[in-house]
């Protein structure tokens, strides 16, 4: 018989057993699943990609540390959320050649993400807007040329620089004529549009974390299998983007008669930030609805807005805007999807 004293007994509230999924674990696992995509970008576009990533992560972590010290709040660096935010900011930076993207861009984006989008509202769990996307949009408008020019070609592969797949789409639809001469527009539009295979593997210019649909798909599937990420948002988001780009994608093309159901859904799904957005941004627990129905509506909205912005907006890429715009509507969506309370006929009072 083992001896013990009453002092050995710990008193705590029920329940006394819990599942093992914890926030820090989640953050680090999500971060880990992003690394292949970033590493691939580093391999394809050269080491500046990795420098930009390091800068973004470092800025995010330091900002987190500084703010928690300043506000005398519990230290939260170890929960991994700042690291992940930094990583996601980096993913949204253009992959450029050595020294082309100034380092202050990712740094400011990270600081904005952590300080303004997250800690101004009270820190982890309190922000209503996805911090990484808020940071990205902020620097996007602050340094538009840096964020939209200088797409890198690849030293390792036969990737031609200067236009992302979605830029090409804009050229084809004749919406970007201003900046380009008619000749180069035709060249870019007709000859250099990447194949679906290149899009899937990431052999095309783009942002650091978004170029390889394959790497993101793999990471996303791991997260879904681990139950960290729900399946309904990525599926609905990608499916609705495919559907709407198929229906309306053909309307915006020049050089052919505009007609419905002639878009190229696969091109839309594989290009730009859709994979990154659908698996890593639109599934952020904090800034998306908690209910199943709410998530479907949220993801549907993301899909519609993404296609709308891609096809008609002056912004080339719609994913980040679509997600942030839907972030705003989350409190309203949540009001519509209230579970039915047991033993009552109605949901909770609004």
């Amino acid at each position: 018989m083992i001896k013990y004293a009453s002092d050995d007994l710990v008193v705590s509230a029920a329940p006394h057993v819990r599942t093992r999924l914890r926030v820090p674990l989640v953050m680090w696992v999500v971060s880990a699943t992003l690394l292949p995509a970033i590493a691939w970008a580093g391999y394809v576009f050269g080491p500046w990609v990795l420098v930009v990533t390091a800068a973004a992560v470092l800025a995010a972590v330091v900002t987190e540390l500084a703010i928690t010290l300043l506000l005398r709040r519990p230290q939260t660096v170890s929960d991994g959320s700042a690291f992940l935010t930094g990583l996601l900011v980096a993913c949204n930076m253009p992959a450029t050649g050595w020294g082309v993207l100034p380092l202050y861009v990712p740094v400011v984006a990270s600081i904005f993400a952590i300080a303004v989008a997250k800690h101004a509202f009270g820190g982890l769990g309190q922000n209503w807007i996805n911090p990484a996307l808020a940071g990205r949009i902020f620097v996007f408008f602050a340094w538009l040329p840096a964020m939209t020019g200088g797409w890198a070609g690849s030293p390792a592969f036969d990737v031609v620089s200067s236009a992302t797949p979605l830029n090409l789409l804009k050229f084809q639809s004749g919406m970007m004529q201003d900046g380009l001469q008619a000749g180069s527009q035709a060249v870019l539009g007709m000859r250099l549009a990447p194949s679906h295979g290149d899009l899937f593997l990431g052999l095309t210019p783009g942002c650091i974390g978004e170029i390889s649909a394959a790497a993101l798909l793999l990471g996303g599937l791991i997260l879904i299998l681990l139950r960290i990420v729900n399946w309904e948002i990525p599926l609905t988001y990608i499916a609705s983007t495919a559907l709407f780009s198929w229906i309306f994608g053909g309307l915006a093309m020049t050089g052919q008669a505009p007609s419905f159901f002639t878009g190229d859904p696969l091109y839309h799904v594989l290009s730009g930030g859709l994979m990154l957005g659908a698996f890593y941004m639109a599934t952020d627990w904090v800034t998306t609805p908690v209910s199943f129905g709410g998530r479907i509506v949220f993801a549907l909205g993301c899909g519609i807005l993404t296609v709308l912005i891609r096809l008609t907006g002056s912004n080339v890429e719609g994913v980040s805007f679509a997600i942030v715009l839907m972030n705003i509507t989350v409190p309203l969506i949540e009001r519509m999807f209230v579970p039915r309370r047991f033993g009552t006929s109605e949901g909770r009072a609004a």
Partner: protein
Amino acid sequence: MHPRDIGLDTMSSPIRNAFLPHYLYIPLQQHIGSPAEAVVAPGDVVSRGDVIGKASGYVSVNIHTPLPGKVIAVQDHVTATADRVPTVVIEVEGRFSLKGQVSRQTDAWKSLSRDEIISRMKEHGLVGMGGATFPMHVKYSVPADKKITTLLVNAVECEPFLSADNRLVIEHGEDLVTGIEIALKALGVNRAIIGFEADMPEAVARMRGLVANRSNIEVLVFPVKYPQGAEKQLVKAATGLEVPSGGLPLDIGVVVSNAGSLVALKEAVVDNKPLFERIVTVTGDAVEKPGNYKIAIGTRVADVLAEVGLKKKPARIIIGGPMMGLAQYSDQVPVTKGTSGILVLSARRAAVYRHRPCVRCGKCMTVCPMGLVPLLLVSRVELGMDDEAKKHGLLDCIECGCCSAVCPSERHLSQAIKLGKLRHVAKKREAAGD
């Protein structure tokens, strides 16, 4: 939720009689309602089954001593739920009388009237043994305006790790069937449903065999899921009806009784044996000989642990199950009528959880069996917005603990909701009384 795969199963451990302790600490309040009044004084000699506490008022029951001995004190003592409860302390000595020793199957009870059965419940100290300990005679005295159609027998373990009901059905199946018949007579209804969980095949087979020739008793098997044994969830699973918010099962014509309570009813009515001992699942990673023990009420946990042995240093002693049980600060708490389990965990299993900010993952909402949104409820409670919290279903919470168990931020959701409820009760008292 399926918080079951932790490998502390006692499903196949037969019921063993626990040894006799030297002292009994029998609290005079082991039920919901007013405490019993002591009818013994220090120096009195009592024998097995004697009444030591007399029911005081309608919602109260008698308390009996399980063992013969000498009363050495009537004093305040700690229980699983309260710090100081009037308690009769008995030094065990003397000889057993045969009272309530023999288990019989006779039909003599059939001559009893409904009222006689119900008064026997109160006399013999019967309470709901699933954990709520609501006096049985009150539950069975159905108001005239309610029409009862079904007796629902709860043979689903109320919590993971506990297997007392499973063993009871396997080993005391006949007693349970007789108990059901007595209960049906007390209620004046003719239909009973016995609800099991799918992981109790032996008990199900046993019961199916026993009721094969009775058309009025139905055996249903439900999927393994916590909290399947919670009253409202079981009623829904068995009848498809939902107990209305703020209501009781009898509002939809159902009376729910725990299998253990009905076996106790049989023993009280047929064998004239009061409720003074019960089957308790003793388990946990610190326990050397986990299993189901028949333990005399009033036995202190320390004495139980001395018998079952410890293989690790206990860090947490829990009365009840892992989801809703109460962690104790003292091993001096006695086993009472409502003690369904004693869980002893070592430091490795007894983690202390940090209440971190909510990250709105929605998992608590997904698992809530009552359709509540715990994350919202808790933020309302924390902000002191009690009226808002009530609108969000504060009082509907059954405190099953699922929300806390899945929370990746280790939030004390269930605890916060309980706090909100307590505050509500306190406010109501204030408004009513002072």
